[in-house]
């Protein structure tokens, strides 16, 4: 390209984009699950931003799952070459702040227009983006667990196909009707399936606690409430599901759950809205989505990933990163992302776009998750999240595995967590 052309291109870009005209070479780390369309969508969006801002480049690095991406970003930042932007777990905010690797977005986005933009995100998603009064992150691939149910199975069991269970009692009651056994007495269709193994299980369990009137963690990242009556009651419900024969005994894996639902091995499942796409592509039966059945009322955790801007990069790079984030979360792009994956579009304006309206009309199940946000609380998070969450996971696994009662297991987890978090008090 001739120099004069380059200048013209640069000028045009400056006029077109709201961001700066400085050239920035951004590195963008992101995690996504297996489905290929998701990666493609991200790549397309990134490319489109670069076309609009030809002075910049973006190297999008698909770094694996959330934990791997966070590890990579942190290690790179510690080694002095942080990524510029990354989508990382919302719950990792405390770790990222403690390691002083991220820049508060509220420090960068401080014009009135910017403030209005930040205010446009659903409040439920901003809860775990704020720490010490500063906004550190912007919601992007956010999700919440919902109850997926097989309408044909409901019909066969003589249940109304439009009223999924709302409470734990209803879940057990309906679950019994939905459980089908073969001639040998082995179950061929379970009433429901709640993942009880690993991090995904801890996430959903956190939602059960919220619906039971409790909250496992707090905004300061230091106090955790693992052995409250609400928490114990929620874990007892999980154990009871198996005892009542509504759910398979023992640990239930996160990864197999959507597959088991598709295969008709379970009449309902509790899992992330991130599976909407998978289910709608693969279920050859009529299915519906409802709120997570609750203890004392509806309740769910929010989850998923936020955009973070890293520290240790130039101001121009930060400005470009902010511009990039605005582009990715803009109404129409968030709509594309939401439709491709099932993640909940994090802003109200997205739901007003024509594509999103059309999507909601063809897949009304997507609206349930959005409406559930009203009752949602923050995902379990604290300083030393990895370690503290592992205590919680062990408690859930030990209880459903029958090695320990919920009360004992949670008391132990609380003790271990306090020992770790004491230094932060």
């Amino acid at each position: 390209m001739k120099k004069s052309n380059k200048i013209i291109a640069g000028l045009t870009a400056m006029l077109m984009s709201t961001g700066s005209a400085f050239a920035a070479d951004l590195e963008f780390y992101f995690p996504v699950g297996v489905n290929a369309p998701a990666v493609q969508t991200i790549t397309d969006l990134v490319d489109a931003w670069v076309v609009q801002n030809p002075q910049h480049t973006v190297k999008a690095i698909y770094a694996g799952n959330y934990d791997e991406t966070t590890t990579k970003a942190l290690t790179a930042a510690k080694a002095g070459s942080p990524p510029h932007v990354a989508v990382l777990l919302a719950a990792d905010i405390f770790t990222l702040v403690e390691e002083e690797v991220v820049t508060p977005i509220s420090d960068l986005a401080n014009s009135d227009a910017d403030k209005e933009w930040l205010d446009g995100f659903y409040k439920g998603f901003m809860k775990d983006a704020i720490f010490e009064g500063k906004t550190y992150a912007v919601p992007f691939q956010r999700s919440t667990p919902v109850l997926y149910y097989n309408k044909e199975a409901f019909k066969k069991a003589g249940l109304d196909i439009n009223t999924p269970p709302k409470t734990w009692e209803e879940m057990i009651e309906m679950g019994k009707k939905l459980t089908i056994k073969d001639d040998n007495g082995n179950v061929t269709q379970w009433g429901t399936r709640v993942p009880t193994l690993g991090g995904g299980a801890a996430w959903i369990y956190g939602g059960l606690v919220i619906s039971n009137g409790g909250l496992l963690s707090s905004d300061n990242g230091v106090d955790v409430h693992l052995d409250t009556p609400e928490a114990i009651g929620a874990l007892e419900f999980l154990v009871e599901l198996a005892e009542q024969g509504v759910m398979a005994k023992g640990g239930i894996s996160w990864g197999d759950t959507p597959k088991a639902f598709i295969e008709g091995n379970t009449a309902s499942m509790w899992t992330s809205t991130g599976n909407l796409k998978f289910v709608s592509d693969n279920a050859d039966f009529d299915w519906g989505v409802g709120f997570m059945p609750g203890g004392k009322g509806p309740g769910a955790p929010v989850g998923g990933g936020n955009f973070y801007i890293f520290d240790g990069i130039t101001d121009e790079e930060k400005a470009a990163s902010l511009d990039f984030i605005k582009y990715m979360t803009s109404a129409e792009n968030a709509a594309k992302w939401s439709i491709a994956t099932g993640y909940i579009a994090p802003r109200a304006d997205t739901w007003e776009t024509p594509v999103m309206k059309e999507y909601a009309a063809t897949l009304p199940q997507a609206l349930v998750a959005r409406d559930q946000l009203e009752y949602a609380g923050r995902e379990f998070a604290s300083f030393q999240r990895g370690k503290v969450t592992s205590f919680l996971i062990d408690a859930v696994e030990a209880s459903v595995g029958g090695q320990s009662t919920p009360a004992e297991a949670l008391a132990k987890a609380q003790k271990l967590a306090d020992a770790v978090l004491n230094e932060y008090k």
Partner: protein
Amino acid sequence: MKSTINRIAYSTLAISLATVWGFPFIYSLWAAFHEEKYSANFTWNAPLTLENFATVWAAAPFSLYFTNTVILTLIILASNLILCTLVAYAFARYKFPGAGLLFSFIMVQLLITPDILIVENYNTLAKIGLIDTIFGITLPYLTSAFGIFLLRQTFKTVPISLDEAAQVEGANTWRVLWDVYVPLAKPTYLAYALVSISFQWNNFLWPLIVTNSPEVRPITVGLSIFATVESGVEWALVNAATLLSTAPLVILFLIFQRRFVANFMRAGIK
């Protein structure tokens, strides 16, 4: 009569073991060549499809991953064969102060492979700026205590007289090594090469930690990233990816299996 019964028993055992062993692979073929909804639903007349392979091929650069694995396996193999030969030869045929101590220092590491010290090795690699490079992945594995041990044992069995005869004829150290020792150790080299290739072909944790870009990712990391379970795992796609990424090796083995096994058998570890 008795031998017939024996033979039948023998064959039955052989067939059942081989079937059990091949089962997971057959399952993988089934899932990869059918739509997702048939991946756990074994209907005999389910329609076959190649779509999974097309999707996988478009979603991730598996040919690149494969090439990366081949390159890093070859770098490590070549370097191992050369470096281990040198060290082994020094220990087998030379006297030098501290030889015994030095050798036991090497032997202590027989079971300590660099992947066990993954954190500190990562830091070292970061310091010298080799993170996210193929050479960086190979660096910790360029020499191996196990290789040194095997070759030293073999070299020790070479009669000194052969060595001396060659020297009388005027061969220098390198000639002796190359003409006398290396040919006699061929079986050991073959056995070690197989182990080394298998080790690197499988290696996952270390490359997972030190790579970021698809350009340098080996097949193991590519596969694991592809099968990450944030949302539901698509069995058909994961199986297609698995088969696709290992197909070149399996096909090579199918073509050359007779020759490979024959060569290997002739060599043997003795």
